[in-house]
């Protein structure tokens, strides 16, 4: 039977259409995809993201361990800062993308994708088991302890200001602080998100979820807040070309191909997969992740093949594609042969038996 977050009853009460996702029963939509998507971009979108996984990493060797485990350099993050990174396997493929919230040098909250929680914890545990300074690291899976709610949109901070004991305006993007929600509920206020909008992700104790959610809905509705399901979450992130594991990222794609070179630091010492990633870099990347703009009405979707305009040979595949509600045309993210990855390149996507003309464009698709 699928798992339920603490907010399941809230979703049903709000008219959420429940589907199974990664072993969880969650709403795919409430009022409709376009309606929710546009509400998030113009006012406030409210998301239950409690299905995500959370690990605690602590101890005097935490920083060393995390820097060996992930591709980015966590020693460069300040106390109170969050860092996005990939976590790779020994072949240089991506196990997951994740965010590390650094309290201090010896204490971290690691947040991973829902669909990879068990896999990631097993991987991290295995890496730790053969880590020389493992006695200085405590790694625990705290996923069932947290309700996580994302409040995203230009008015998100207006809604949260009065509900936070911390000065939210002083929290910059990708920073976080601990405080009280609505004067009583201990809460992490993190200025992170997956929509491309300003906003916060709130972490509270699992059972406090309904109280937080209801308060946000009550005070947010008059401001234009709409609860948003998984469907809107996907169109929002696609418009800003945020990768999704299982689409752009998998254990056979390396971070450089996936456009995650910016979170892959070769100058920080060894990390799992570094050797193989460097090898791929030296050999030259064979494929690259690009953004495609549809030049016709057909909609490019995950799995559709990408073809050269001249020869019609297939040389790529769409990893994510959708009609984009904020742009009013369709977009796709795709892996293509490096030779076809320049901006402006005209290509074709096979949609059923037809070809949709597309163009390689700069991303994010939606410019803010």
């Amino acid at each position, binding site marked *: 039977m699928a798992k339920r977050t603490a907010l399941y009853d809230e979703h049903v009460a709000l008219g959420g259409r429940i589907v199974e996702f990664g072993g969880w029963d969650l709403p*795919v*939509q409430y009022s*409709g*995809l*376009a*309606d929710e998507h546009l509400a998030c971009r113009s006012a406030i979108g409210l998301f239950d993201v409690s299905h995500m996984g959370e690990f605690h990493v602590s101890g005097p060797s935490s920083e060393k361990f995390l820097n060996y485990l992930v591709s980015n350099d966590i020693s460069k993050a300040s106390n109170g800062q969050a860092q996005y990174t990939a976590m790779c396997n020994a072949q240089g493929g991506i196990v997951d993308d994740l965010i590390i919230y650094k309290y201090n040098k010896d204490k971290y909250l690691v947040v991973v994708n829902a669909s990879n929680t068990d896999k990631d914890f097993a991987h991290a545990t295995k890496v730790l088991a053969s880590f020389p300074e493992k006695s200085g690291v405590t790694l625990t899976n705290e996923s069932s302890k947290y309700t996580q709610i994302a409040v995203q949109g230009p008015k998100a901070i207006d809604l949260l200001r009065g509900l936070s004991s911390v000065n939210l305006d002083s929290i910059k993007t990708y920073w976080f602080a601990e405080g009280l929600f609505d004067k009583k509920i201990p809460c992490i206020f993190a200025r992170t998100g997956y929509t491309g909008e300003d906003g916060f992700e709130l972490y509270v104790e699992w059972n406090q979820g309904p109280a937080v959610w209801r308060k946000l809905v009550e005070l947010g509705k008059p401001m234009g807040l709409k609860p948003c399901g998984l*469907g809107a979450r*996907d*169109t929002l992130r696609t418009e800003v070309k945020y990768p999704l594991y299982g689409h752009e990222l998998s254990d056979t794609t390396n971070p450089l191909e996936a456009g995650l070179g910016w979170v892959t630091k070769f100058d920080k010492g060894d990390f799992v997969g570094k050797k193989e990633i460097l090898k791929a870099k030296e050999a030259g990347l064979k494929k690259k992740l690009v953004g495609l703009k549809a030049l016709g*009405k*057909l*909609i490019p*979707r995950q799995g559709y093949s990408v073809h050269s305009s001249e020869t019609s040979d297939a040389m790529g595949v769409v990893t994510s594609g*959708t*009609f984009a*509600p904020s742009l009013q045309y369709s977009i796709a993210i795709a892996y293509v042969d490096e030779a076809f990855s320049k901006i402006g390149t005209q290509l074709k996507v096979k949609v*059923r038996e037809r070809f949709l003309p597309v163009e390689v464009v700069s991303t994010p698709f939606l410019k803010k």
Partner: protein
Amino acid sequence: MNPDHLKYTKDHEWAKVEGAKATIGITDHAQSALGDIVYLELPKVGRVLKKGETFGVVESIKAVSDLYSPCAGKVLAVNSDLANQPGQINSEPYDASWMIQVEVANASDLSELMDASKYNQYVSSLK
């Protein structure tokens, strides 16, 4: 909810039968399940369809769905206005959002269609 003067299929199409002509569209249940419809592909006039053959495609933001002809016959007319404004299907799936009109080749094909009350029961059973 579902108009009494129409007939219905298990694939959530409706058919308005007038003599040897059948006008076809998709039901309210279909448009609700799909969500915001953003694309509609219809056949050319003159195409000859088999019973159950795919005559087009409707796409929402999240989903792709084939459209099936409830009867065999030649396509007499196509609602190309609708193909340019597919979102109308969500607000008004009947009447104005007709998709194709077919010349019915075998009247017996139509006998398998459900009337409104049978279709209402069928939709309830899916919930």
